[in-house]
């Protein structure tokens, strides 16, 4: 038994199998006791927000462009799908079409964004968020039902209706895993590397033939599509969308999740989402919870900025890197000692 655990490959496989098994049976476990459904619901929200935060991370973390208007893309994804579905378009096409709209909207912002300096980009994205929210409140022709919001029918995938949390769970879990896999594939691709290079040094990236603007635009569009996709999932999980659900607070929330977990790391946003959700759930019972929530976002963000700029995962990977280097230096010293 001990031997098996020593073999790294086998150990990893065992850990993976156990994790997958646990994730698969989670809904079964949670639906078996009374308050379980509540926790399952919370977990579902974690999946959705984690996708949004992961998407945001592609833009802010991997390509170094701040986005304080994440809620705008989130809401376009949500409203887009719901409105198209209400027109009688099958869900799957509605989603694809909505993602195209988000992509186009993302592209519209990406082109000027690639030119702007960091602080101006912060202001500009904030402005985009405000404009979109304003349009949701007073929509042309009332297609968003303005402040009354819209109720959303159960998600209908090829005739398969997903209405209960336990049913949505698998769908959302798979979506999140796919998004994480995609992000992983993206950052390990030439395109992804070029984005990161452009983030770290515009000059050097340019000198090696990286078209900095192009890659910033690619990162922004990909990021917006993922945030929009999370918006679609949110609409069907929440079953109700209104301008309030997409106010500036959501943008800040995504930002906090990404930053706390560690921007520019694969699992950082997921980790941040889990941590922020825990804070949210703990504060939920308090009177004036919204304010305490806002206060805690603020404190979390400030603490991250002051003490750990790369978030929780940044801290972990930093320790890892230091260990590798220490080991290498020790080896070298030993080699030199033997040599002399």
């Amino acid at each position: 038994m001990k031997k098996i655990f020593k073999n790294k490959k086998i150990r990893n496989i065992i850990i993976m199998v156990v994790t997958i098994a646990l994730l698969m049976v989670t809904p079964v476990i949670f639906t078996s006791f009374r308050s379980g459904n509540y926790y399952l619901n919370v977990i579902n929200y974690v999946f959705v927000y984690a996708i949004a935060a992961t998407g945001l991370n592609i833009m802010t973390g991997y390509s170094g462009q701040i986005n304080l208007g994440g809620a705008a893309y989130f809401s376009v994804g949500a409203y887009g799908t719901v409105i198209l579905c209400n027109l009688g378009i099958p869900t799957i096409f509605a989603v694809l079409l909505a993602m195209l709209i988000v992509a186009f909207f993302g592209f519209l912002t990406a082109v000027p964004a690639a030119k702007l300096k960091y602080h101006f980009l912060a202001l500009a994205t904030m402005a985009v968020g405000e404009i979109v929210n304003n349009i949701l409140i007073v929509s042309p022709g009332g297609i968003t039902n303005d402040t009354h919001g819209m109720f959303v029918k159960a998600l209908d995938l090829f005739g398969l209706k997903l209405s209960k949390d336990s049913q949505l769970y698998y769908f959302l879990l798979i979506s999140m895993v796919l998004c994480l896999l995609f992000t992983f594939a993206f950052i390990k691709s030439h395109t992804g590397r070029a984005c990161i290079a452009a983030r770290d040094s515009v000059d050097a990236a340019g000198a090696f033939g990286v078209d900095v603007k192009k890659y910033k635009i690619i990162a922004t569009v990909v990021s917006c599509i993922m945030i929009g996709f999370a918006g679609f999932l949110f609409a069907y999980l929440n079953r109700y969308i209104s301008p309030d659900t997409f106010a500036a607070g959501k943008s800040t929330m995504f930002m906090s999740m990404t930053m706390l977990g560690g921007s520019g790391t694969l699992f950082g946003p997921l980790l941040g989402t889990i941590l922020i959700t825990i804070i949210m759930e703990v504060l939920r019972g308090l009177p004036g919870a919204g304010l305490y929530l806002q206060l805690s976002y603020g404190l979390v963000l400030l603490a991250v900025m002051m003490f750990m700029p790369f978030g929780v995962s940044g801290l972990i990977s930093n320790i890892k890197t230091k260990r590798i280097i220490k080991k290498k230096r020790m080896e070298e010293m030993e080699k030199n000692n033997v040599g002399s």
Partner: protein
Amino acid sequence: MLEVSHAFLNFNGLQAINDVSIKVNDGTITAMIGPNGAGKTTLFNIIAGVYKPDSGVVTLDGVDITGKKPFEICNYGITRTYQVIKLFTGMSALDNVLVGMHINYKLNFFQDVFHTKKMRQLEKETKERAMELLRLVGLEDYAGVTASSLSYGQQRLLEIARALGSNPKLLLLDEPAAGMNLKEKNDLCDRLRIIKNMGITILIVEHDMSLVMNVAEEIFVINSGKNLAYGTPDEIANNKDVIEAYLGSGD
């Protein structure tokens, strides 16, 4: 191979480059030296496309590359390192070199992001080549380490490896030995000779005279934006003008 003829450049009334011509011969290590503020780095930046000269022509193997943008220059076979290190600090050493090989990738977005068979094949080849380059500068053990955690000397070496990534004909090195200790400098000289033997021409801008004298075959001396002398290390070491410029310039 590289020829700069009669370059002029004026910065807000300051004549930084005032009729400089240099010629780098194929397969040599050529150095460009001069006192502080002589215009070496400016000339270097003209070659690298950062500045466009007011007049004058830069050619590479007879092709006019005057005023080309930095990201175009590398397509002509010129890559560079920086005086102030500009690595991709958040990426691993290997990834830095891979970005250096960026122009070799001819894949469309979907082949690339969805890791098709073609992409994986290419990725495997480029990674092997990148590891070779890291081995060449002696950083193969640090392939997975984040660039920002490398030591100063190692970062300079990584810049060279990255610059070699795009298979350049000409390698421009901007003070590669700055901040290195004696052992690292000697190492660097050996490595530069190996690179030269691979058929890559090298142009160095350097402060450190011992390094230049050790490694360079031809030397251009520039002073106050003008050509001052040209010759082999021995000739330069005995050149009266050069000695005067260094001693008389006051810095």
